[in-house]
Protein backbone atom coordinates (compact mmCIF):
# COMPACT_ATOMS: atom_id res chain seq x y z
CA UNK A 1 0.00 0.00 0.00
CA UNK A 2 2.73 2.36 1.03
CA UNK A 3 4.87 1.73 -2.03
CA UNK A 4 1.83 2.17 -4.23
CA UNK A 5 1.19 5.60 -2.83
CA UNK A 6 4.75 6.64 -3.35
CA UNK A 7 4.63 5.54 -6.90
CA UNK A 8 1.54 7.52 -7.65
CA UNK A 9 2.70 10.80 -6.14
CA UNK A 10 4.98 11.83 -9.05
CA UNK A 11 2.10 11.11 -11.41
CA UNK A 12 -0.20 13.36 -9.43
CA UNK A 13 2.36 16.12 -9.16
CA UNK A 14 3.12 16.19 -12.86
CA UNK A 15 -0.58 16.06 -13.71
CA UNK A 16 -1.24 18.99 -11.40
CA UNK A 17 1.51 21.00 -13.07
CA UNK A 18 0.07 20.11 -16.47
CA UNK A 19 -3.38 21.34 -15.40
CA UNK A 20 -1.97 24.61 -14.11
CA UNK A 21 -0.17 25.09 -17.42
CA UNK A 22 -3.45 24.41 -19.20
CA UNK A 23 -5.30 27.31 -17.64
CA UNK A 24 -2.33 29.60 -17.18
CA UNK A 25 -3.14 32.89 -18.94
CA UNK A 26 -1.19 33.43 -22.15
CA UNK A 27 -1.24 36.34 -24.57
CA UNK A 28 -4.13 35.72 -26.91
CA UNK A 29 -1.84 35.22 -29.89
CA UNK A 30 -0.24 32.26 -28.16
CA UNK A 31 -3.41 30.64 -26.89
CA UNK A 32 -4.04 28.40 -29.93
CA UNK A 33 -0.48 27.16 -29.64
CA UNK A 34 -0.88 25.91 -26.10
CA UNK A 35 0.15 22.25 -26.06
CA UNK A 36 -2.25 19.68 -24.67
CA UNK A 37 -0.12 19.28 -21.55
CA UNK A 38 -2.39 16.89 -19.71
CA UNK A 39 -2.48 14.48 -22.65
CA UNK A 40 1.29 14.54 -22.98
CA UNK A 41 1.80 13.78 -19.31
CA UNK A 42 -0.82 11.04 -19.38
CA UNK A 43 0.77 9.41 -22.43
CA UNK A 44 4.15 9.47 -20.72
CA UNK A 45 2.93 7.80 -17.55
CA UNK A 46 0.91 5.31 -19.50
CA UNK A 47 4.00 4.29 -21.46
CA UNK A 48 6.26 4.15 -18.43
CA UNK A 49 4.19 2.67 -15.66
CA UNK A 50 2.11 -0.30 -16.35
CA UNK A 51 -0.78 -0.19 -13.96
CA UNK A 52 -1.32 3.39 -12.82
CA UNK A 53 -3.08 4.92 -15.78
CA UNK A 54 -6.23 2.95 -16.25
CA UNK A 55 -9.09 4.14 -18.39
CA UNK A 56 -10.98 5.03 -15.23
CA UNK A 57 -8.17 7.26 -14.05
CA UNK A 58 -7.98 8.92 -17.44
CA UNK A 59 -11.72 9.56 -17.20
CA UNK A 60 -11.33 11.18 -13.78
CA UNK A 61 -8.45 13.34 -14.98
CA UNK A 62 -10.59 14.43 -17.92
CA UNK A 63 -13.45 15.36 -15.60
CA UNK A 64 -11.16 17.51 -13.46
CA UNK A 65 -9.88 19.16 -16.60
CA UNK A 66 -13.46 19.83 -17.74
CA UNK A 67 -14.27 21.46 -14.42
CA UNK A 68 -11.13 23.55 -14.50
CA UNK A 69 -11.61 24.84 -18.01
CA UNK A 70 -15.36 25.18 -17.74
CA UNK A 71 -15.94 23.10 -20.85
CA UNK A 72 -18.84 20.75 -21.43
CA UNK A 73 -18.61 18.16 -18.66
CA UNK A 74 -17.23 14.96 -20.18
CA UNK A 75 -15.66 16.51 -23.26
CA UNK A 76 -12.05 16.13 -22.23
CA UNK A 77 -12.95 12.97 -20.35
CA UNK A 78 -14.11 11.26 -23.53
CA UNK A 79 -11.07 12.48 -25.46
CA UNK A 80 -8.62 11.28 -22.85
CA UNK A 81 -10.33 7.92 -22.40
CA UNK A 82 -10.10 7.24 -26.14
CA UNK A 83 -6.51 8.48 -26.16
CA UNK A 84 -5.55 6.20 -23.28
CA UNK A 85 -7.32 3.28 -24.86
CA UNK A 86 -5.25 3.70 -28.01
CA UNK A 87 -2.03 4.12 -26.05
CA UNK A 88 -2.59 0.99 -23.96
CA UNK A 89 -3.54 -0.89 -27.08
CA UNK A 90 -0.28 -0.04 -28.85
CA UNK A 91 1.81 0.37 -25.74
CA UNK A 92 4.23 -2.46 -26.48
CA UNK A 93 5.09 -0.96 -29.83
CA UNK A 94 5.12 2.70 -28.82
CA UNK A 95 7.55 2.09 -26.00
CA UNK A 96 10.36 0.89 -28.25
CA UNK A 97 9.94 3.41 -31.02
CA UNK A 98 12.84 5.82 -31.54
CA UNK A 99 11.94 9.33 -30.31
CA UNK A 100 11.02 10.82 -33.68
CA UNK A 101 8.74 7.91 -34.48
CA UNK A 102 7.21 8.18 -31.05
CA UNK A 103 6.63 11.87 -31.63
CA UNK A 104 4.86 11.08 -34.89
CA UNK A 105 2.56 8.62 -33.16
CA UNK A 106 1.83 11.24 -30.55
CA UNK A 107 0.89 13.59 -33.39
CA UNK A 108 -1.51 10.99 -34.76
CA UNK A 109 -3.04 10.45 -31.32
CA UNK A 110 -3.50 14.16 -30.69
CA UNK A 111 -4.97 14.80 -34.14
CA UNK A 112 -7.43 12.03 -33.48
CA UNK A 113 -8.27 13.72 -30.19
CA UNK A 114 -8.88 17.03 -31.98
CA UNK A 115 -11.21 15.30 -34.44
CA UNK A 116 -13.24 13.92 -31.55
CA UNK A 117 -13.30 17.39 -30.02
CA UNK A 118 -14.45 18.87 -33.31
CA UNK A 119 -17.28 16.35 -33.44
CA UNK A 120 -18.41 17.32 -29.94
CA UNK A 121 -18.17 21.03 -30.69
CA UNK A 122 -20.27 20.80 -33.80
CA UNK A 123 -22.86 18.63 -32.07
CA UNK A 124 -23.11 21.30 -29.41
CA UNK A 125 -23.98 23.87 -32.06
CA UNK A 126 -20.83 25.92 -31.88
CA UNK A 127 -19.26 27.57 -34.88
CA UNK A 128 -16.43 25.62 -36.47
CA UNK A 129 -13.06 26.59 -35.00
CA UNK A 130 -10.47 28.48 -37.07
CA UNK A 131 -7.49 26.81 -38.71
CA UNK A 132 -5.32 27.57 -35.69
CA UNK A 133 -7.33 24.86 -33.92
CA UNK A 134 -4.96 22.34 -35.54
CA UNK A 135 -1.84 24.10 -34.37
CA UNK A 136 -1.88 22.71 -30.83
CA UNK A 137 -1.21 19.05 -31.80
CA UNK A 138 1.76 20.16 -33.93
CA UNK A 139 3.28 22.16 -31.10
CA UNK A 140 2.64 19.30 -28.70
CA UNK A 141 4.44 16.93 -31.06
CA UNK A 142 7.45 19.22 -31.30
CA UNK A 143 7.56 19.41 -27.52
CA UNK A 144 7.03 15.69 -26.95
CA UNK A 145 10.70 14.56 -26.95
CA UNK A 146 11.61 17.26 -24.43
CA UNK A 147 8.60 16.55 -22.26
CA UNK A 148 9.56 12.89 -22.39
CA UNK A 149 13.14 13.53 -21.32
CA UNK A 150 12.08 15.93 -18.60
CA UNK A 151 9.51 13.58 -17.14
CA UNK A 152 11.92 10.67 -17.42
CA UNK A 153 14.52 12.61 -15.51
CA UNK A 154 11.99 13.60 -12.90
CA UNK A 155 10.89 10.02 -12.59
CA UNK A 156 14.37 8.68 -12.01
CA UNK A 157 14.96 11.43 -9.47
CA UNK A 158 11.79 10.49 -7.62
CA UNK A 159 12.74 6.86 -7.70
CA UNK A 160 16.23 7.61 -6.45
CA UNK A 161 14.79 9.67 -3.66
CA UNK A 162 12.59 6.79 -2.65
CA UNK A 163 15.47 4.34 -2.62
CA UNK A 164 17.39 6.54 -0.23
Amino acid sequence: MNSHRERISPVLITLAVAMVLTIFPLPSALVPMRPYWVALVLIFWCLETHSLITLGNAFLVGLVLDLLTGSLLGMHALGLVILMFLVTRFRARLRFFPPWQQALSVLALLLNDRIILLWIISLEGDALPPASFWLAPLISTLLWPWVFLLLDHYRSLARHHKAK
Partner: protein
Amino acid sequence: MMYGLLAVVLMAMDHRGQYVPRFRSLAGHLVEPVHYVVEWPVRALRGVFGYLQSTQALRRENAALQRDLLQQKASLQRLDAMMEENTRLRTLLEGASSGRRFEFQFAEMIEVDLDPFSHKVIIDHGRDRGIVSGQAVIDGAGIMGQVEDVFQGQSTVRLISDPNHALPVQINRTGLRTVAFGTGDTAHLSMPAVPREADVRIGDLVVTSGLGGRFPSGYPVAIVASIDRREGLTFAQVMAVPIAALDRGREVLLLKSVAPDPAVPDPAVPGPATPVPATMAPAASEAAPPAHE
Protein backbone atom coordinates in the same frame (compact mmCIF):
# COMPACT_ATOMS: atom_id res chain seq x y z
CA MET B 1 -15.86 1.49 -23.55
CA MET B 2 -17.99 1.98 -20.50
CA TYR B 3 -16.16 5.17 -19.60
CA GLY B 4 -16.61 6.45 -23.12
CA LEU B 5 -20.35 5.90 -22.87
CA LEU B 6 -20.39 7.53 -19.46
CA ALA B 7 -18.64 10.57 -20.90
CA VAL B 8 -21.14 10.85 -23.74
CA VAL B 9 -24.06 10.56 -21.33
CA LEU B 10 -22.50 13.21 -19.10
CA MET B 11 -22.09 15.58 -22.01
CA ALA B 12 -25.64 15.10 -23.13
CA MET B 13 -26.89 15.71 -19.61
CA ASP B 14 -24.72 18.77 -19.21
CA HIS B 15 -26.00 20.13 -22.49
CA ARG B 16 -29.65 19.55 -21.80
CA GLY B 17 -30.38 18.52 -18.28
CA GLN B 18 -30.72 19.85 -14.80
CA TYR B 19 -28.63 17.64 -12.57
CA VAL B 20 -25.20 17.90 -14.08
CA PRO B 21 -25.08 21.71 -13.99
CA ARG B 22 -25.92 21.44 -10.32
CA PHE B 23 -23.08 18.99 -9.80
CA ARG B 24 -20.87 21.32 -11.77
CA SER B 25 -21.68 24.29 -9.61
CA LEU B 26 -20.94 22.22 -6.50
CA ALA B 27 -17.67 20.93 -7.87
CA GLY B 28 -16.80 24.44 -8.92
CA HIS B 29 -16.19 25.27 -5.29
CA LEU B 30 -13.30 22.79 -5.31
CA VAL B 31 -11.81 24.27 -8.45
CA GLU B 32 -12.13 27.87 -7.30
CA PRO B 33 -8.89 28.02 -5.26
CA VAL B 34 -6.93 26.60 -8.18
CA HIS B 35 -7.98 29.52 -10.33
CA TYR B 36 -6.77 31.91 -7.67
CA VAL B 37 -3.43 30.17 -7.37
CA VAL B 38 -2.91 30.19 -11.11
CA GLU B 39 -3.84 33.81 -11.45
CA TRP B 40 -1.77 35.00 -8.52
CA PRO B 41 1.59 35.36 -10.35
CA VAL B 42 -0.15 37.32 -13.11
CA ARG B 43 -1.59 39.72 -10.59
CA ALA B 44 1.73 40.03 -8.83
CA LEU B 45 3.49 40.82 -12.11
CA ARG B 46 0.92 43.45 -12.96
CA GLY B 47 1.46 44.99 -9.53
CA VAL B 48 5.20 45.14 -10.11
CA PHE B 49 4.71 46.80 -13.49
CA GLY B 50 2.36 49.25 -11.84
CA TYR B 51 5.14 50.30 -9.46
CA LEU B 52 7.60 50.66 -12.29
CA GLN B 53 5.39 52.98 -14.30
CA SER B 54 6.98 56.38 -14.50
CA THR B 55 5.47 59.43 -12.86
CA GLN B 56 5.49 61.11 -16.25
CA ALA B 57 3.27 58.45 -17.79
CA LEU B 58 0.98 58.45 -14.78
CA ARG B 59 0.59 62.21 -14.91
CA ARG B 60 -0.23 62.07 -18.59
CA GLU B 61 -2.77 59.31 -18.02
CA ASN B 62 -4.30 61.25 -15.16
CA ALA B 63 -4.72 64.33 -17.31
CA ALA B 64 -6.34 62.31 -20.07
CA LEU B 65 -8.69 60.64 -17.62
CA GLN B 66 -9.72 63.95 -16.11
CA ARG B 67 -10.46 65.34 -19.52
CA ASP B 68 -12.59 62.28 -20.25
CA LEU B 69 -14.38 62.60 -16.95
CA LEU B 70 -15.24 66.22 -17.62
CA GLN B 71 -16.66 65.35 -21.00
CA GLN B 72 -18.71 62.50 -19.59
CA LYS B 73 -19.99 64.72 -16.81
CA ALA B 74 -21.11 67.30 -19.33
CA SER B 75 -23.03 64.76 -21.34
CA LEU B 76 -24.47 63.26 -18.16
CA GLN B 77 -25.88 66.63 -17.16
CA ARG B 78 -27.80 66.75 -20.38
CA LEU B 79 -28.89 63.16 -19.87
CA ASP B 80 -30.18 63.92 -16.39
CA ALA B 81 -32.29 66.74 -17.70
CA MET B 82 -33.61 64.52 -20.44
CA MET B 83 -34.46 61.75 -18.01
CA GLU B 84 -36.42 64.19 -15.88
CA GLU B 85 -38.30 65.30 -18.92
CA ASN B 86 -38.84 61.74 -20.00
CA THR B 87 -40.38 60.68 -16.70
CA ARG B 88 -42.56 63.77 -16.69
CA LEU B 89 -43.84 63.02 -20.18
CA ARG B 90 -44.39 59.37 -19.32
CA THR B 91 -46.43 60.32 -16.28
CA LEU B 92 -48.53 62.56 -18.46
CA LEU B 93 -48.94 59.86 -21.06
CA GLU B 94 -49.82 56.75 -19.10
CA GLY B 95 -49.63 57.66 -15.48
CA ALA B 96 -46.80 55.28 -14.77
CA SER B 97 -43.06 55.29 -14.84
CA SER B 98 -41.30 52.29 -16.25
CA GLY B 99 -38.05 53.35 -14.68
CA ARG B 100 -36.19 50.63 -12.95
CA ARG B 101 -33.04 51.88 -11.37
CA PHE B 102 -29.80 49.95 -11.51
CA GLU B 103 -26.69 49.94 -9.43
CA PHE B 104 -23.32 49.08 -10.85
CA GLN B 105 -20.78 46.87 -9.26
CA PHE B 106 -17.26 46.85 -10.55
CA ALA B 107 -15.59 43.49 -11.05
CA GLU B 108 -12.49 42.17 -12.70
CA MET B 109 -12.08 39.07 -14.76
CA ILE B 110 -9.93 36.38 -13.30
CA GLU B 111 -7.36 35.76 -15.95
CA VAL B 112 -7.26 32.08 -16.48
CA ASP B 113 -7.68 30.69 -19.95
CA LEU B 114 -10.81 28.63 -20.06
CA ASP B 115 -11.76 26.39 -22.90
CA PRO B 116 -12.41 28.69 -25.88
CA PHE B 117 -15.56 26.75 -26.70
CA SER B 118 -17.13 27.19 -23.28
CA HIS B 119 -18.17 30.85 -23.81
CA LYS B 120 -17.59 31.62 -20.18
CA VAL B 121 -15.40 33.97 -18.22
CA ILE B 122 -14.71 34.07 -14.51
CA ILE B 123 -15.03 37.27 -12.49
CA ASP B 124 -13.64 37.97 -9.07
CA HIS B 125 -16.93 38.69 -7.32
CA GLY B 126 -18.96 35.95 -5.75
CA ARG B 127 -21.48 35.27 -3.08
CA ASP B 128 -19.46 37.28 -0.58
CA ARG B 129 -20.25 40.46 -2.55
CA GLY B 130 -23.89 39.63 -3.02
CA ILE B 131 -23.76 38.41 -6.61
CA VAL B 132 -26.73 36.32 -7.64
CA SER B 133 -27.21 34.09 -10.62
CA GLY B 134 -28.78 35.88 -13.57
CA GLN B 135 -27.32 39.34 -13.08
CA ALA B 136 -26.49 41.15 -16.29
CA VAL B 137 -22.81 41.82 -16.98
CA ILE B 138 -21.69 44.71 -19.19
CA ASP B 139 -18.43 46.35 -20.07
CA GLY B 140 -17.80 49.93 -21.04
CA ALA B 141 -19.28 49.41 -24.48
CA GLY B 142 -22.20 47.01 -24.19
CA ILE B 143 -23.79 43.84 -22.87
CA MET B 144 -21.41 40.94 -22.27
CA GLY B 145 -23.48 38.22 -20.70
CA GLN B 146 -25.05 37.09 -17.50
CA VAL B 147 -23.89 35.50 -14.27
CA GLU B 148 -24.34 31.76 -14.28
CA ASP B 149 -22.74 29.96 -11.33
CA VAL B 150 -21.96 31.87 -8.16
CA PHE B 151 -19.21 30.60 -5.89
CA GLN B 152 -17.77 31.98 -2.69
CA GLY B 153 -15.36 34.52 -4.12
CA GLN B 154 -15.91 34.25 -7.85
CA SER B 155 -18.58 33.52 -10.37
CA THR B 156 -18.80 32.43 -13.96
CA VAL B 157 -20.39 34.59 -16.64
CA ARG B 158 -22.08 33.08 -19.67
CA LEU B 159 -21.31 35.25 -22.69
CA ILE B 160 -23.97 36.30 -25.17
CA SER B 161 -22.01 34.51 -27.88
CA ASP B 162 -22.94 31.10 -26.47
CA PRO B 163 -25.07 29.25 -29.02
CA ASN B 164 -27.61 28.51 -26.29
CA HIS B 165 -27.98 32.10 -25.24
CA ALA B 166 -30.89 34.23 -26.38
CA LEU B 167 -31.09 37.93 -25.67
CA PRO B 168 -34.27 40.00 -26.15
CA VAL B 169 -33.26 43.03 -28.19
CA GLN B 170 -34.69 45.78 -30.34
CA ILE B 171 -33.39 47.81 -33.24
CA ASN B 172 -32.67 51.19 -31.75
CA ARG B 173 -33.69 53.20 -34.83
CA THR B 174 -37.10 51.62 -35.40
CA GLY B 175 -37.94 49.93 -32.12
CA LEU B 176 -38.42 46.60 -33.87
CA ARG B 177 -38.23 43.88 -31.23
CA THR B 178 -36.51 40.58 -31.83
CA VAL B 179 -34.18 38.08 -30.20
CA ALA B 180 -30.42 37.85 -30.67
CA PHE B 181 -28.90 34.41 -30.43
CA GLY B 182 -25.27 33.57 -29.88
CA THR B 183 -23.58 31.74 -32.73
CA GLY B 184 -20.63 30.20 -30.92
CA ASP B 185 -18.44 32.83 -32.49
CA THR B 186 -17.56 35.83 -30.35
CA ALA B 187 -17.66 38.09 -33.41
CA HIS B 188 -21.26 37.40 -34.43
CA LEU B 189 -24.77 37.31 -33.06
CA SER B 190 -27.62 36.09 -35.19
CA MET B 191 -31.16 37.44 -35.30
CA PRO B 192 -33.15 34.82 -37.15
CA ALA B 193 -36.64 36.13 -36.40
CA VAL B 194 -36.70 39.43 -38.26
CA PRO B 195 -39.45 39.66 -40.92
CA ARG B 196 -38.11 39.91 -44.47
CA GLU B 197 -39.68 43.26 -45.20
CA ALA B 198 -38.77 44.78 -41.83
CA ASP B 199 -36.91 48.05 -41.79
CA VAL B 200 -33.42 47.00 -40.81
CA ARG B 201 -30.27 48.48 -42.26
CA ILE B 202 -26.63 47.64 -42.02
CA GLY B 203 -25.10 49.74 -39.28
CA ASP B 204 -28.23 49.84 -37.14
CA LEU B 205 -27.60 49.76 -33.42
CA VAL B 206 -29.14 46.83 -31.57
CA VAL B 207 -30.03 47.47 -27.93
CA THR B 208 -31.58 45.35 -25.22
CA SER B 209 -35.35 45.56 -25.13
CA GLY B 210 -35.72 44.74 -21.47
CA LEU B 211 -38.32 42.08 -22.14
CA GLY B 212 -37.87 39.05 -19.96
CA GLY B 213 -36.73 41.27 -17.15
CA ARG B 214 -33.26 39.88 -16.89
CA PHE B 215 -31.43 42.49 -18.89
CA PRO B 216 -32.31 46.16 -18.43
CA SER B 217 -33.57 47.92 -21.52
CA GLY B 218 -31.59 50.29 -23.67
CA TYR B 219 -28.08 48.91 -23.35
CA PRO B 220 -26.17 48.59 -26.61
CA VAL B 221 -25.60 45.02 -27.73
CA ALA B 222 -24.41 44.89 -31.31
CA ILE B 223 -24.32 46.58 -34.68
CA VAL B 224 -26.05 45.03 -37.67
CA ALA B 225 -23.39 43.79 -40.07
CA SER B 226 -25.21 41.83 -42.74
CA ILE B 227 -28.80 41.18 -43.81
CA ASP B 228 -29.79 38.30 -46.03
CA ARG B 229 -33.21 38.86 -47.63
CA ARG B 230 -33.06 36.15 -50.23
CA GLU B 231 -36.21 35.09 -52.00
CA GLY B 232 -37.82 32.10 -50.33
CA LEU B 233 -36.70 32.81 -46.81
CA THR B 234 -39.47 33.30 -44.28
CA PHE B 235 -37.31 35.61 -42.23
CA ALA B 236 -34.38 37.81 -43.03
CA GLN B 237 -31.11 36.43 -41.74
CA VAL B 238 -29.58 39.29 -39.80
CA MET B 239 -26.08 39.04 -38.39
CA ALA B 240 -24.75 41.57 -35.92
CA VAL B 241 -21.35 42.22 -34.40
CA PRO B 242 -21.29 42.51 -30.59
CA ILE B 243 -20.02 45.82 -29.28
CA ALA B 244 -18.67 44.57 -25.96
CA ALA B 245 -15.18 43.10 -25.97
CA LEU B 246 -16.34 39.54 -25.42
CA ASP B 247 -13.00 37.88 -25.93
CA ARG B 248 -10.74 40.63 -24.65
CA GLY B 249 -11.66 43.13 -21.91
CA ARG B 250 -10.66 42.85 -18.30
CA GLU B 251 -12.94 45.08 -16.27
CA VAL B 252 -16.66 44.47 -16.22
CA LEU B 253 -19.68 46.00 -14.52
CA LEU B 254 -22.38 43.97 -12.83
CA LEU B 255 -25.87 45.40 -12.95
CA LYS B 256 -28.01 45.09 -9.90
CA SER B 257 -31.61 46.13 -10.05
CA VAL B 258 -32.60 48.29 -7.13
CA ALA B 259 -36.09 47.88 -5.75
CA PRO B 260 -38.10 50.69 -7.32
CA ASP B 261 -40.10 53.20 -5.35
CA PRO B 262 -43.03 51.29 -3.88
CA ALA B 263 -45.22 54.32 -4.51
CA VAL B 264 -44.79 53.97 -8.25
CA PRO B 265 -46.28 50.88 -9.90
CA ASP B 266 -43.67 49.19 -12.00
CA PRO B 267 -44.91 47.52 -15.15
CA ALA B 268 -41.40 46.67 -16.27
CA VAL B 269 -41.00 43.87 -13.75
CA PRO B 270 -42.48 40.82 -15.38
CA GLY B 271 -43.93 37.79 -13.73
CA PRO B 272 -42.12 34.49 -13.86
CA ALA B 273 -44.13 33.40 -16.89
CA THR B 274 -42.63 35.84 -19.36
CA PRO B 275 -42.74 34.31 -22.84
CA VAL B 276 -39.12 35.03 -23.70
CA PRO B 277 -36.86 34.47 -20.72
CA ALA B 278 -33.47 35.98 -21.30
CA THR B 279 -31.59 32.78 -20.83
CA MET B 280 -31.77 29.49 -22.63
CA ALA B 281 -34.97 30.26 -24.47
CA PRO B 282 -36.67 27.00 -25.39
CA ALA B 283 -36.50 27.99 -29.03
CA ALA B 284 -32.74 28.07 -28.78
CA SER B 285 -32.37 24.55 -27.51
CA GLU B 286 -34.82 23.28 -30.08
CA ALA B 287 -32.96 25.00 -32.86
CA ALA B 288 -29.71 23.39 -31.78
CA PRO B 289 -28.99 20.00 -33.29
CA PRO B 290 -30.04 17.10 -31.08
CA ALA B 291 -26.72 16.71 -29.40
CA HIS B 292 -25.29 13.46 -28.14
CA GLU B 293 -28.31 11.33 -28.33
